[in-house]
């Protein structure tokens, strides 16, 4: 699944064991694709000595802090960016921003 800047995406709520680079605090959260960072070998495979191919698209995704934390202390415009691999993202068709 490929995405473009501006697409709304949700981070999969997967509980995949082993080495992953998608932090727990992002799982199940909705954000917006900011940019495409390129293609890289999959770190989840590289961690175990596998080739990590085919390469995966890496996206810079922005999240509203008030969407990530119930008790966020700060204005609603504050954001967080994380670099998330394509296989951790799914499209989000929700109405809320």
């Amino acid at each position, binding site marked *: 699944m490929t995405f473009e800047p501006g697409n709304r995406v949700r981070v999969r709520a997967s*509980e995949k064991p*082993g*080495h992953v680079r998608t*932090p*727990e*605090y*992002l799982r199940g959260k909705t954000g917006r694709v900011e940019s495409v960072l390129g293609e890289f070998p999959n*770190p989840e495979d*590289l*961690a*175990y*000595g596998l080739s*990590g191919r085919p390469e995966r698209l890496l996206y810079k995704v922005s999240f509203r802090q008030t969407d*990530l*934390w119930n008790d966020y202390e700060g204005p609603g415009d504050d954001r967080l960016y994380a670099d998330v691999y394509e296989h951790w993202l799914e499209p989000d068709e929700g109405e809320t921003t």
Partner: protein
Amino acid sequence: MAGVHDLGGSSGGPIDRSQHETEDWERLADAITIALDKKGIKTTDQHRRALESLDNYRELAYYERWVAATEKLLVEKGILTSKEIDQRSAEVARRWSGTR
């Protein structure tokens, strides 16, 4: 269930802003880890995976974790054994005055 290393959003206390003098053994730990990476003997991703698998992750200091992870990978790859590292460490400890 977040891994032991997956700290984003966990509760935490005030940030200790003091800086300790980097010790020679820490420079060595840093250099050996990266040198092994540059030679293709282990990779950053393998190193991270090894770090994350440490039972005592929360108890060890930063470079202590690096040494433990590097050892784990060297043993996993059959390059060294823990026993010989134990033996040599004991010799080092005996010979050395233990400063830095």
